[in-house]
């Protein structure tokens, strides 16, 4: 049954690629503990190191700069605690794993605002950097998970460097969708998650620039160059590596996905002039479309879409069931009502025109019903 649903929630998780799934299963069949010195251990070690090279290549890093983790959340937590930072400067639209991790440290924590389009305010970043006593970390995501809006990471990194601060970039949603080069970005640390780019769940990486010493969060057997103890998730890492190779190619084909998304947005605006597309005016990921339909709660929209066989989401998937207005849209100046009546449509490799049409039919139908009942209205109340 699930196969007949139009899956448009790639930013929550992307279906695992066949080659990645094959790599996972093969690694499971090989077995072995990569720390063991016998042949079985050495085979497992070889798999891990091959994947390390593949993941490094994806973001222009060196293999030894890759620390495998259990996912993006762990990588973000590792980055924010890499040194005993005195101040953590993050954008207000970061993922919960950055915001909560920053709040959990003893560091002085500054959330830098974004503008109405959801782009980091560089002047505010500079102000936050001024007069800081080190060590300081600036953490800015490359692409927002809810709106897809790209962030000026290079510029932020330039400012950070002028003030002697280190730079972390959560590139979880960006890799595999746009070209990502760690050196070009000027980031000292970069977070990746396998399952957002067609790899398996349960594995991610923190890429750490050579020469930067990261203090581990997890102590024990000294794996991952002493920066992350624990027996390596060999099958997961193998799948991550396989997905990374595909993701490199995928970026070249992003135009196809962008065309599908742009077509969808044109139709939305034509059919529902009251709809609002968040971050429309600025560079975004090619696959993400965050639409607001003021007056119709996100929950109502996603339920109606689910009944119509379309899987989308009301924002980030992580918030353990609690429904609350998106902090991302709120940071962009959305009123609580506008923020609570938006949904995210995110496309991926297997998305087709049939999927987006199915979405459109259902969503426009929903709008028509809501309009009849007078609940949908133009988003005049956009500013809080």
């Amino acid at each position, binding site marked *: 049954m*699930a196969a007949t*649903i139009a*899956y448009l*929630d790639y930013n*929550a*998780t992307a279906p*695992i690629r066949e080659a990645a*799934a094959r790599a996972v*299963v093969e690694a*499971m*069949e090989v*077995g*072995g*503990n990569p*720390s*063991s*010195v*016998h*042949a*079985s*251990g050495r085979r497992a070690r070889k798999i891990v190191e091959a994947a390390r090279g593949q993941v490094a290549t994806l973001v222009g890093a060196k293999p030894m700069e890759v620390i495998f983790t*259990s*996912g*993006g*959340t762990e990588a973000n*937590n590792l980055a924010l605690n890499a040194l005993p930072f005195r101040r953590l400067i993050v954008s207000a639209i970061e*993922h*919960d*794993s950055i915001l*909560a*991790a920053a709040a959990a440290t003893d560091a002085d924590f500054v959330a830098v605002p974004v503008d109405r389009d959801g782009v980091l305010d560089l002047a505010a970043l500079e102000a936050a950097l001024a007069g800081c006593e080190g060590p300081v970390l600036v953490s800015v995501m490359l692409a927002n998970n809810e709106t897809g809006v790209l962030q000026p990471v290079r510029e932020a990194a330039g400012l950070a460097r002028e003030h002697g601060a280190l730079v972390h970039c959560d590139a979880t949603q960006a890799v595999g969708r746009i070209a990502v080069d760690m050196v070009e970005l000027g980031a000292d640390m970069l977070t990746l*998650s396998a*399952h957002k780019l067609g790899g*398996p*769940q*349960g*594995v991610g990486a923190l890429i750490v620039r050579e020469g930067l010493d990261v203090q581990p969060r*997890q*102590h*024990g*057997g*000294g794996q991952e160059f002493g920066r992350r*103890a*624990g*027996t390596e*998730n*060999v*099958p*997961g890492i193998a799948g991550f590596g396989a997905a990374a190779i595909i993701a490199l190619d995928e970026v070249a084909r992003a135009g196809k996905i962008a065309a599908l998304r742009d077509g969808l947005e044109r139709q939305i605006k034509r059919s529902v002039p009251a709809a609002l597309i968040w971050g429309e005016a600025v560079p975004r990921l090619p696959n993400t479309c965050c639409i607001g339909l003021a007056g119709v709660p996100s929950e109502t929209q996603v*339920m109606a879409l*689910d009944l119509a066989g*379309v*899987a*989308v*989401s009301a924002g*980030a*998937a*992580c*918030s*353990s069931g609690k429904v609350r207005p998106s902090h991302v849209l709120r940071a962009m100046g959305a009123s609580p009502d506008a923020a609570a009546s938006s949904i995210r449509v995110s496309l991926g490799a297997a998305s087709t025109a049939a999927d987006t049409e199915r979405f459109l039919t259902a969503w426009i139908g929903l709008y028509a019903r809501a309009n009849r009942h007078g609940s949908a209205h133009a988003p005049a109340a956009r500013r809080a």
Partner: protein
Amino acid sequence: MTSMHDTSRTPNIKVPIYLDYQATTPVDPRVLDAMMPFFTNQFGNPHSRSHKFGWDAEEAVEVARGQVAHIINADPKEVVFTSGATESNNLAIKGVARFYKDRRNHIVTVLTEHKCVLDSCRHLEQEGFKVTYLPVKQNGLVDLDLLRETVTDKTVLVSIMAVNNEIGVIQPLAEIGAICRAKGAFFHCDAAQGVGKIPIDVEAMKIDLMSISGHKIYAPKGIGALFVRRKPRVRLEPLFSGGGQERGFRSGTLAPALCVGIGTACAIAEKEMGADNERIRKLADRFYQGIMARTPEVFLNGDREQRIPGNLNLSFAYVEGESMLMGIKELAVSSGSACTSASLEPSYVLRALGVEEAMAHTSIRIGLGRFTTEAEVDYAVQTINERVGKLRELSPLWEMAQEGIDIKSIEWAAH
């Protein structure tokens, strides 16, 4: 793979023979089967609340949580999924210590614990906690009287493993649990080598936190669990923060495939533990007797009775450890724990038992498990007997020992 040995005597043997079940276990094909749908059409994020992909994934995770809970007699709500036992141990030890630091600041553990337990404790010492590292008796077991004297009303946590990863001895968990409960200290048990091998009941044993590993029980790597008791309630500071998954103890997207893997592995282990253990015990006895009958001066490390059947840690006197491992290359065994196997230091576990350095250097951990066959055991026994014999023929120490010279009395010339 080709062998240096003549395999004609045992035509059906495939080398290398895997005898390192304490390092990691192969994934049970039934576990892999249960995971497969999650690598194809059931790919959802279990935290997605708005569509069937998410709900299906969440349901699978919850079934798995129930299976893990069941094998240790816990409530499913008390099971927190992690990336493995190292994370579970770090989370339990640091999490509890940090949460209760204003009330109690003393931790008790044992010198033979897994490295990640000891390293977590050492890290806490740097944060100002007091840690007592208890010695063990010569058989590898904790001295309960000593434990009773050591745990005070300042002790927040006692961390003692269920089964030792190198020597397979089983600690007296119920007695330890009673001592901890009486003093109001939380009892954390690293059961990475215990769950699925011995019956564990967190109620009867008064265990407050327990670490479980997937890849030690025929599930894949990258998944583990931490049991965190709800009544009386145990609280802890998370290692990582984020979306607030796993009751806030452990943020991050869960991997349904991996959760299903460990859940299925627990369900299989619960059902088959008795039969598995009986079969493995017979194989281990055959192994041990096969060696003892042909090779003199071999010593079993750790208690003879209080041990899991799938572990034999043997010291071969008058043989150099590295040449021993090189000599039996077609057997995948280890000289200690996998995590420290790249180091040439003798095992700290054996040293804690009072095993002399020279003997600790010549010890081999043999791990038997669900897929070990009698033919493999016979082949391994024959290989070890032959190789030890050959190595001893070349050993001047052995020659001297045969002539009745006490090696320890020799004063070696400094050079």
